[in-house]
């Protein structure tokens, strides 16, 4: 996946106003199957896996014993006791080893199926209509997954994404992926690269593991307490419960630059001239036309409206903590 095909801003705008597609085949897939699948996933995933209906999807953290976030991922329930989890590429091997280790004692098989799937994310207000017409398949609603045939092969269609726009993620046979890409291209879907993927997800305030999430941060300080259900007894639940009860020294907060300047990962955050945090993701926002980011800041500063400064390579840029998301598409606003 290149950083860009024709320009980050054009690709970003295509997803916000029309339809763009991302070849995210680098994402990993792990299939978990067996009578013990639910019990096992409850043990390793932070969310309440028991609430995923057949054909449902759910976001979770994969936590270490100390609550640190090893990865963040979606789990899809494909069958009664069959689940697919989609991992971040950089964490895939480590996740597999971790899952293998914790699966001992559960009546379950954990299989690396990353080679079985190519993954195309088609996103934007027109994405669903174009995919439906082009591939002649019925699409599942948001946060659902459906079996389908794409290019004559079995495929999974997921009503999920990473852009803040409506759309689908197609898990398809790698052999037919280039042909499907070409068909969608012909139908007017704009190819998008990593650059737009990052600006879109940052405007939507979706976390990027390795930037905003890491084994050194727990879900509570990352603002992911909503997908942690400690009552399920997942690995790390005690640490997460403790962080939730006691509060954390820092919290991840989105912010907007008030004037000029573009924040970047690693920039220090200042409050009253004193160090107060660090930027974990920063970029120019093509939708808002200003610098935006997410930063771990002292918890008392993490409220929307708080004024801070970002030290952008020695220049102190005025910024204000904002509420999530930094940008909301008109379509998702209408849904509320």
């Amino acid at each position, binding site marked *: 996946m290149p*950083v*860009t095909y*024709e*320009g*980050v*801003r*054009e690709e*970003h705008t295509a997803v916000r106003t029309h339809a763009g597609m991302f070849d995210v085949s680098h994402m990993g897939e792990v299939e978990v199957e067996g009578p013990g699948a639910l019990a096992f996933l409850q043990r390793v995933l932070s969310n309440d896996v028991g609430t995923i209906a057949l054909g449902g999807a759910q976001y979770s953290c994969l936590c270490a014993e100390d609550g640190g976030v090893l990865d963040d991922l979606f789990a899809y329930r494909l069958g009664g006791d069959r689940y697919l989890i989609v991992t971040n590429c950089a964490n895939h091997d480590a996740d597999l080893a971790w899952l293998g280790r914790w699966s001992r004692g559960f009546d379950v098989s954990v299989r690396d199926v990353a080679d079985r799937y190519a993954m195309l994310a088609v996103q934007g207000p027109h994405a669903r209509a174009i995919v439906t017409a082009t591939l002649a398949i019925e699409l599942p609603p948001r946060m659902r997954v459906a079996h389908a045939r794409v290019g004559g092969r079995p495929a999974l269609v997921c009503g999920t994404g990473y852009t803040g726009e409506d759309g689908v993620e197609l898990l398809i046979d790698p052999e037919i992926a280039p042909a499907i890409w070409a068909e969608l291209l012909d139908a007017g879907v704009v190819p998008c690269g990593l*650059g737009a993927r*990052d*600006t879109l997800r940052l405007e939507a305030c979706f976390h990027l593991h390795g930037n905003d999430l890491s084994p050194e941060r727990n879900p509570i300080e990352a603002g992911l307490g909503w997908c942690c259900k400690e009552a399920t007894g997942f690995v790390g639940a005690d640490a997460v419960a403790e962080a939730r009860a006691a509060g954390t020294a820092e919290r991840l907060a989105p912010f907007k630059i008030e004037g*000029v*300047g*573009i924040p*970047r990962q690693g920039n220090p955050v200042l409050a009253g001239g004193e160090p107060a945090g660090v930027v974990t993701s920063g*970029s*120019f926002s*093509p939708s808002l036309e200003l*610098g935006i980011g997410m930063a771990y800041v002292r918890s008392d500063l993490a409220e929307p409206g708080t004024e801070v400064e970002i030290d952008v*390579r020695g*220049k102190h840029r005025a910024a204000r903590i904002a509420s999530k998301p930094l940008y909301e598409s008109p379509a998702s606003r209408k849904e509320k």
Partner: protein
Amino acid sequence: MTKLAEASYPDDLLYHDQHDWARLEGDEHAVFGITWYAQDSLGEVVFYDPPEPGATIDKDSSYAEVESVKAVSDVIAPMSGEIVEVNEALADAPEKINEDPYGEGWLVKVKLSAPKETDALLGADEYRKLLDA
């Protein structure tokens, strides 16, 4: 879609190997900017952070920053001197650096402190060869 300038390296400019150009104005002044290659590598410029007028700049050192959506890039001074003017229009229209890198996308005007530094700069043909190498 932003229309980018075609690849071009005008013969009346002097070039620095860090992809900057200088246009001499008389014996003591010059206008600086970045080359077509530099803006093309960077992608669409969304922010230009100029130096202050009056600031002293040194040949081969960074005197400004240009940023695309994804990356920030130092701008290297092809010659030494004192900033006498910055292109204020770029504050609202930084994309001029892409669209017209040798014209409306100029970055600074400089009073040269060592006009002889031109000896170390490249002509258009030499610069094109550097890019082809």
